[in-house]
């Protein structure tokens, strides 16, 4: 009896199938050799990821938030990403033979050299007795501008500064007093008539480089600028920017030599503002509510005006004030309907001479539709997938770049339709947490665009270990994986494929679409 019970127990236990090796699901692996060539083994199975992946690794240090760009090479599981122990610009600010110890503002603007279209800006301020600043700066090519707080010291600028991974030394020499000249002038709205609010003035090189500090004129319009002795050798531009308050124009005056400062700089914006009002109608004849209205262009006196935004009311009406036009066709009226509106963007000449208000009705064209559908890896359709389109480039020089895109979801048959002004957009499709986000660049034509079905590929999770030079894991590093593509106009552009944040052990897991 007891023996029978024993055999019964053993038989039941054998049914648990614990005596044999469990069979691995198809496609699973523990090493690359488990996968058929050219696939590799990732944490979620065998697969193939593109071999031209690029990464941007964003980390935070005391010196600032920086990005390091690098090529990932052939992607494999537990890919090491080694960052330098320090990613910074070692900036040495000098004046004459010594360090410049007073307060400066440091502004570095540039772009990644590895990731086209990824722009970067870093700004800091302070003073250093040694003149040495450690500024966290991402990899790329930068213009570094050092602006002393003392307006008698002209700013120093260095263009084309290549910043690689690690520490990049740079010395910027500010002009010593012996090489600085003082330029005094007067800026007026009209002859004998100062601007109601004193404007700001700055001397710029023809290519936009600042040659002096930004200074504010006094109530009578008088100002002083300090610039290098040779600042005017290649010609320069005096940029006049209105102060806050009444309408005024931004003006740029060519300065061939220092004698120009003997004459007042007349902005010529003495004419009173004129009102522009009217109604914005959509393609269906109904008023467009919430459209942004801007007026931009050359105004009376030759300066540039830029007013707005004001927003259309429920009945499509708006009212805005601008300085009168400089000449026929020199002002443009922009009407930017809100996202989701069937009305499209309008940029049209505005006839706004001095003396009389302008009133009109403006009709927006139909906003084109971007249509498409989403297919799952098994060919099935998916409702509820998130769709987002962000404008990145114009379709041609004559068509303005819209300021915003749109978002939505796929409907029951897996299809979607977004109302978008003509442009090149980055289209993002997020099907589910388990599937990779698919991004691509799409062109929306004035007549609309019908996309081929977007097939969501299966994804593979790339695991990367983010380390410092010394081997220390880096937690909370944001790893963005890109691939460079070429837009319709031939311009290269980096396309985000996936993102992930490293954990306490430095491991980041990034779900990427398979090739």
């Amino acid at each position: 009896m007891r023996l029978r019970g024993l055999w019964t127990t053993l038989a039941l236990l054998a049914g648990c199938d614990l005596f044999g090796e469990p069979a691995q699901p198809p496609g699973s692996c523990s090493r690359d050799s488990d996968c058929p060539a050219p696939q590799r083994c990732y944490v979620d199975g065998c697969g193939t990821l593109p071999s031209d992946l690029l990464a941007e690794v964003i980390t935070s240090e005391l010196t600032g938030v920086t990005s390091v760009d690098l090529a990932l090479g052939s992607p494999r599981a537990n890919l090491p990403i080694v960052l330098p122990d320090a990613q910074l610009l070692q900036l040495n600010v000098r004046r004459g033979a010594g360090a410049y110890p007073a307060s400066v503002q440091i502004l570095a603007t540039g772009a990644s050299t590895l990731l086209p279209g990824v722009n970067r800006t870093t700004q800091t301020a302070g003073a250093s007795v040694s003149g040495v600043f450690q500024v966290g700066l991402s990899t790329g090519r930068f213009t570094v501008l050092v602006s002393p707080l003392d307006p008698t010291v002209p700013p120093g600028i260095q263009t084309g500064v290549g910043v690689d991974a690690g520490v990049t030394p740079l010395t910027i020499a500010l002009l010593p007093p012996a090489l600085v000249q003082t330029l005094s002038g007067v800026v007026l709205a009209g002859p004998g008539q100062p601007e109601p609010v004193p404007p700001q003035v700055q001397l710029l090189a023809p290519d936009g480089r600042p040659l002096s500090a930004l200074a504010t004129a006094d109530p009578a319009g008088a100002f002083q600028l300090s610039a290098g002795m040779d600042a005017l050798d290649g010609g320069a531009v005096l940029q006049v920017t209105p102060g806050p308050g009444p309408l005024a124009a931004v003006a740029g005056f060519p300065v061939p030599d220092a004698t120009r400062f003997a004459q007042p700089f007349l902005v010529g914006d003495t004419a009173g503002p004129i009102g522009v009002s009217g109604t914005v109608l959509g393609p269906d004849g109904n008023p467009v509510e919430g459209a942004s209205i801007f007026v931009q262009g050359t105004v009376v006196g030759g300066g540039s005006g830029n007013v707005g935004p004001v927003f259309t009311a429920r009945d499509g009406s708006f009212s805005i004030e601008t300085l009168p036009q400089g000449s026929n066709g020199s002002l443009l009226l922009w009407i930017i309907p809100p996202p989701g509106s069937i009305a499209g963007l309008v940029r049209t000449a505005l006839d706004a001479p001095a003396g009389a208000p302008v009133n009109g009705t403006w009709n927006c064209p139909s906003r084109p539709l971007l249509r498409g559908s989403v297919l799952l890896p098994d060919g099935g359709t998916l409702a509820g997938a998130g769709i987002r389109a962000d404008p990145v480039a114009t379709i041609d020089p004559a068509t303005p770049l819209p300021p915003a895109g749109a978002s939505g979801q796929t409907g029951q048959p897996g299809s979607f339709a977004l109302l978008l002004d003509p442009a090149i957009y980055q289209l993002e499709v997020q099907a589910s947490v388990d599937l990779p986000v698919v991004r691509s660049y799409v062109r929306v034509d004035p007549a609309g665009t019908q996309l081929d079905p977007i097939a969501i590929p299966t994804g593979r999770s790339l695991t990367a270990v983010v380390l410092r030079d010394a081997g220390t894991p880096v937690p909370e590093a944001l790893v963005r994986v890109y691939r460079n593509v070429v837009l319709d106009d031939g311009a290269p552009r980096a396309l985000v494929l996936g993102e992930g944040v490293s954990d306490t052990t430095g491991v980041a897991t990034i779900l990427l679409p398979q090739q």
Partner: protein
Amino acid sequence: MSPGRARGLLLAAAVTLPACLLPQEDHIIQPLPPEMNQPPRILEDKLLPSSRFVTVNNGADCPNLSFLAPVADPDVTDTLIYNFYVDPNLFPNFVKQAIIANNGLEIRSDPATYEVSFATPGPLQQPGGHVVEVLVSDGALVGRTPLPRTVTLLDGGTAQDPTYAVTYAWTVTVVAGPCP
């Protein structure tokens, strides 16, 4: 089979087969009440631009200005929504709204992003001082106010679970002029 051998077999089975499921005591664990929602947060040490103060030129040729705000939420299943505003004191409507899907982790993969092109009219084209603000919420928003969620309690009743919104703002100084 001798009793000693049978005991040995049973002992061996007990040692080698610990993973096999065996009947357990029928003790039903009572479900826990739903956890209260916790607020999301903006990872301020990972923001781009990293400085709260930013100076840019507004020339049409100037590169786009990108804002990036990584976010986290201890409620890993929460979907986050973010709005960007420019000069919200003047223009209360957002200039961009988007969703950050959950990735099963507290720190989300996708940051909140906003890109400004100076080739297109916008509030940031005007020279002077501006504020760019990002608002991140784990609930539906009415304007800037997150709506509470209605949760079902164990006794079948309902309660209001608050949702949260957190913000960060940059001060942007726009200078008239092209970019060198």
